[in-house]
């Protein structure tokens, strides 16, 4: 019979196992080659974006619920890292898990709105979250430090014998950025594994059924509240953990970082990467996540950009970044709605046919 264990494997073909192995190997070796602070920062950002994007993909990609509230959940996580990790000195696993739990609980409170609202209406409600969030972050001084923000530089970053702020192996000392790089990408890898496992088992199939046709999903016995809210909980929990890492990376958490642009950036990442494909979220994060930082770095090479008004140029760096995201969104939605991951699948298919027809 055709029921075979290989069909159930995460990586069914040798090709996929080899490619993943290569990707992991390259990832491990990067800090041995790249030591400049700028590019390390870029890769750390990309890893954090990957964590959050994998989460958003569970909600938007697999369950079909578009949310612009992601920035709010990231913010919740960042303040948790500052309050519990830095101010209270909780150890890394505890403040990180606390961020995940807080994000998940708030997601579980917001989730029921998704039961009554669909499409654009849900987008507007989740957008409202971002504004409520900024208001809370600005005014709950005792926890958030109000408009002055709060520091995360004291947050504990060690796990067992490994302090990610400065660890070394025989013959190599790693910088704090390089340590952070390993930490965020290990977490991103775990998130990828968790969401890939969910997708190939019963709960993930149910999410996709809800996305494809919710009436039929109910008729085969899928409880819509359970899965719509569940998707929200997972997504916001992952977002909050990504936010906690972002807070630590920036060493400072202020109320205005958690704005619509950040949410839109996440939506753009999963669309450009490939909606509804776990690998898409990671590809999108690598490609789009650090783009604003790279643009800023090379802005002096682009004469039409200005950093301070009046120094020449026609558009500010921030505005240009927003336009770039808009343009990429439009291009991908028009020409490759399934994103970079689909380009990759197509290239792979072509490679296979080329190999099988000598």
């Amino acid at each position, binding site marked *: *019979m*055709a*029921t075979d*264990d290989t*069909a*159930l494997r995460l990586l069914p073909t040798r090709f996929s196992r080899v490619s993943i192995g290569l990707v992991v190997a390259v990832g491990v070796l990067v800090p041995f080659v790249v030591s400049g602070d700028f590019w390390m920062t870029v890769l750390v950002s990309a890893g954090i974006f990957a964590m959050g994007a994998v989460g958003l993909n569970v909600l938007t990609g697999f369950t079909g619920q578009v949310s612009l509230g992601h920035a709010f959940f990231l913010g919740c996580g960042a303040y948790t890292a500052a309050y519990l990790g830095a101010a209270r000195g909780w150890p890394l696993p505890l403040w990180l898990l606390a961020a995940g739990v807080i994000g998940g609980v708030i997601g579980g409170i917001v989730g029921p709105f998704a039961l009554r609202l669909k499409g654009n209406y849900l987008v507007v409600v989740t957008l409202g979250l971002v504004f409520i969030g900024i208001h809370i972050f600005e005014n709950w001084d005792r926890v958030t430090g109000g408009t002055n923000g709060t520091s995360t530089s004291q947050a504990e970053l060690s796990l067992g014998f490994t302090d990610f702020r400065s660890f070394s192996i025989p013959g190599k000392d790693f910088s704090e950025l390089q340590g952070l790089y390993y930490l965020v990408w290990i977490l991103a890898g775990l998130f990828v594994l*968790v*969401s890939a*496992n*969910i997708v*190939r*088992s*019963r*709960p*993930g*199939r*149910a999410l*996709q*059924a809800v*996305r*494809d*046709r919710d*009436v*039929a*999903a*109910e*008729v*085969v*016995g*899928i*409880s*819509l509240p359970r899965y719509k809210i*569940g998707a929200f909980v*997972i997504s916001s929990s992952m977002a909050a953990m990504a936010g906690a890492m972002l807070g630590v990376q920036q060493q400072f958490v202020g109320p205005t970082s958690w704005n619509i642009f950040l949410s839109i950036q996440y939506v753009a990442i999963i669309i450009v990467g490939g909606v*509804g494909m776990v690998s898409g979220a990671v590809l999108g994060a690598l490609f789009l996540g650090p783009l604003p930082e790279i643009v800023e770095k090379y802005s002096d090479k682009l004469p039409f950009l200005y950093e301070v008004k009046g120094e020449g140029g026609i558009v500010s760096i921030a505005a240009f970044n927003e336009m770039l995201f808009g343009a990429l969104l439009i291009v991908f939605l028009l020409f490759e709605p399934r994103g970079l991951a689909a380009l990759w699948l197509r290239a792979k298919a072509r490679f296979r046919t080329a190999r099988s027809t000598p």
Partner: protein
Amino acid sequence: MSLLEVREISLSFGGVRAISDVTFDVEAGELFAVIGPNGAGKTSIFNCLNGVYEPRGSIKLEGLELTGLPPSKIASLGIARTFQNLALFSNLDVISNLMLGRHHLMKTGFIAGALWVGRAKREEIVHRRRCEEIVELLELTPYRRQPIGTLPYGIQKRIELGRALAMDPKVLLLDEPVAGMNLEETEGMARYILDIRDELGVAMVLVEHDMHFVMDLADRLLVLEFGQVIAVGTPEQIANDPNVIRAYLGEAS
């Protein structure tokens, strides 16, 4: 006690009575057909049976009251259905669609699924095997790994039947299983329906326009007109029933 007991169910939309005081029984292993002109209330009865609408009156499956329960609960109690205009999960492949039929028989939750240890994997293997049997019964093997959206209509109809069957239902509701099919496809579907009854012994309630199809297949029929039952009986009784002849052929002057 019959397997399915429907007692005086009525349903109104605003002032319009879609069905009024409909009563019937379905026995175990029976192929029961509901026929009637367009708008007679056939699909409305289905929507009551599986909880999409909530009628007045009583619907009992093995003595258990179903009215008022949500569709997902009714599905897990053993009522499966197919839709007139297909309701498949079009981005998923055939196997995943059938596996979704088995959703209510499985237990893996978010955490077990995320970890993919022990039960999650074992359960997946056991239920996948059952789905593969259904794939073979309905001759869907060539398509098993393809996303549904790319497959022809007739095949999709069969996949939907497969998904309903994968639910291990006590009663299977088939809403116009041969609508829009050519003669060959219709005969194929009739064969699958008979196979299901003979091999699996599942009771079926069938709504259909195609009179030949229904008369050949059904053990008993119920004829609806304007939401009311005008006759119930075997195909011979129905064919000779004066009320049915009047409803279908008009009054003899």
